[in-house]
């Protein structure tokens, strides 16, 4: 219990020191000549945030770019050789492919599932319960998520896996698809009789993407649901009067109307997919052909201790985020233009 007590004391002291410091600064700045006062007071309000993001994000990010041009012990300049290694090494090429799969498959399926749920649950009597159930996985840590799915994918010697139970029960399914109910999901790379070499993508990445979609769909559903409810009733009524079916109304009125929201959600999921680390680290640790750029970043840097290559992988993630943001901005602007708002 003393530990808890000291933790509380430390936290309270740290926060009071900060508040006291800000109060003294504010008072001191008030003694300044009048024409500087307003600006100086603003900076008293701003400087903790400004310092935190400059020291914690801006400078480190610039330094990471610099480190990516140095060797692994940050002692010599090596030009673009780290970047060359990322894109030519067979292992990292698989990693890049996997990350693209996360982004592409993960985003498309999440958006489709989210839209379907938001559309069909809209107006159901159990709507809020449905949304809570779908959202629940989003409140669980990705490490916990990995654990939960461990019980789905478990294979021999533990006969406790749900997936094996289901596939074993389907008649006529070949062994390579789990027909005998004892497939080692996440450990065997092949599927349907195809055994890919170590440098080629296997099925395991997609098993992990399923976990990712499971965690993200709730967020997509909630946001889409709010957007669908925001479609003006007058538009829906007009479509109905013109004799449009529910399906036609959805595709011709609702979807175009919420286009910018779809872009936003797709952007959020894409960026989450690019940063995918926790699920991979907590399930396979990136083995069995499942590594992603974000996981490779961690392994390269903190397990293998390769500073230059690690920094380069971080820059690659950043470089992939930027076009996504630009596409998002453009699509956003177009959508707003279309709606004339």
């Amino acid at each position, binding site marked *: 219990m003393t530990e808890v007590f000291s933790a509380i004391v430390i936290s309270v002291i*740290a926060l009071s020191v900060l508040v006291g410091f800000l109060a003294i600064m504010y008072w001191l700045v008030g003694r300044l000549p009048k024409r500087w006062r307003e600006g100086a007071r603003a900076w008293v309000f701003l400087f*903790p945030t400004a310092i935190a993001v400059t020291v914690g994000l801006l400078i480190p990010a610039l330094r990471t770019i610099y480190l990516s041009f140095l060797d692994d012990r940050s002692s010599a300049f090596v030009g673009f050789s780290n970047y060359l290694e990322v894109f030519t090494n067979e292992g990292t090429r698989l990693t890049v492919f996997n990350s693209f799969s996360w982004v592409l498959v993960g985003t498309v399926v999440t958006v489709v599932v989210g839209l379907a749920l938001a559309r069909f649950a809209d107006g159901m009597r159990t709507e809020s319960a449905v949304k809570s159930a779908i959202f629940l996985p989003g409140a669980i840590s990705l490490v916990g998520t990995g654990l939960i799915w461990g019980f789905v994918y478990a294979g021999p010697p533990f006969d406790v896996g749900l997936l094996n139970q289901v596939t074993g029960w389907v008649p006529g399914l070949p062994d390579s698809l789990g027909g005998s109910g004892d497939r080692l999901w996440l450990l065997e790379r092949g599927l349907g009789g195809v055994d890919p070499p170590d440098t080629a993508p296997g099925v395991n990445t997609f098993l992990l993407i399923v976990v990712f979609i499971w965690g993200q769909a709730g967020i997509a559903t909630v*946001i889409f649901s709010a957007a669908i409810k925001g479609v003006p009733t007058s538009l829906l009524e007009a479509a109905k009067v013109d004799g449009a079916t529910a399906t036609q109304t959805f595709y011709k009125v609702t979807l175009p109307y919420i286009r910018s929201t779809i872009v936003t959600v797709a*952007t959020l999921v894409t960026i989450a997919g690019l940063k995918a680390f926790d699920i991979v680290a*907590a399930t396979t640790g990136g083995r069995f052909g499942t590594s992603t750029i974000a996981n490779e970043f961690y392994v390269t840097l903190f397990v293998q201790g390769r500073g230059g290559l690690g920094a380069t992988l971080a820059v690659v993630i950043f470089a992939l985020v930027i076009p996504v943001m630009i596409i998002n901005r453009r699509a956003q602007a177009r959508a707003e233009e279309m709606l004339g708002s």
Partner: protein
Amino acid sequence: MKLRTKRQKGSIGKGSIGQSAAATLTSKPGQALVYLLVFLWTIPTFGIFISSFRPEIDVKTSGWWNWFFDPGVTLDNYRQVLSSGPGQDDLWKFFLNSVQITVPSVILSVGLGLLAAYALSWMKFKGRDWVFVGIVGLLMVPLQMALIPLLQLFSGGAHIGSVTIVPDLNLTGKVYGVWIAHTAFGLPLVVFILKTFVSGLPRDVIEAARVDGAGHATIFLRLVVPLSVPALASVAIFQFMWIWNDYLIALIFAGRDNAPIVRHLATLTGTRGQSYHLLTAAGMISMVVPVAVFFALQRYFVRGLLAGAVKG
């Protein structure tokens, strides 16, 4: 961009065409699809929930669905992970570590974020728009970009040549380092959401206070803080869930002794892969807080999510 939110309650009132339009949208196959998805989405969590109450031998030898034919309930798994054996720490310690990391980090990021949001909305100074654009621009930077240099700063200080700019702070493995990292990484989004809210507060109210002679400190404490409570709640919950569930920052900045429960769970998964029965209980305990927070404050959480989704 403005996110189009809930349409007015009145417009979908009884008997209106809006109501019938919504009703026809929900077809029978559509409903079936919804329930199928809900089933698929719930079953994995339900499985671990059931497993956590099953005896060790059952968990290891048969799938959790067998519980329905052979029910046996025990609290042994929970008892075991919550009591410490020799040379081992019980789960309480890591649970409290999570609290110790999460609560101050949330207070820091939300508090500092509100101060900044106020300055960016209601105080006049040169370069205000640029500062805002700069902070929000950092939303694009993935935190992987900042990890290595920040860790170096914490463990060795900053130097240019032989000149020391920042001394060795010795923050690696300390809880302060984790607070600073979470605060710095969370602030851009917090500032963005709070600025949108605070700048939308009614101008008349703030002007009136100013005319009555209130300074910025008074306006901030007496007006802006109380008026921003709904936005603060959303952002705080959002940050809370994020920090509680974080693994990467905890892995890199926290020490073995102040690791949060999520990181400990990952360690257990690695080292005690055979102890499935204990993992289920540990997993459930690690989920209790965020899931409870989510259900209790769902409304605020969703609002924060919608505000966050506006970023573009």
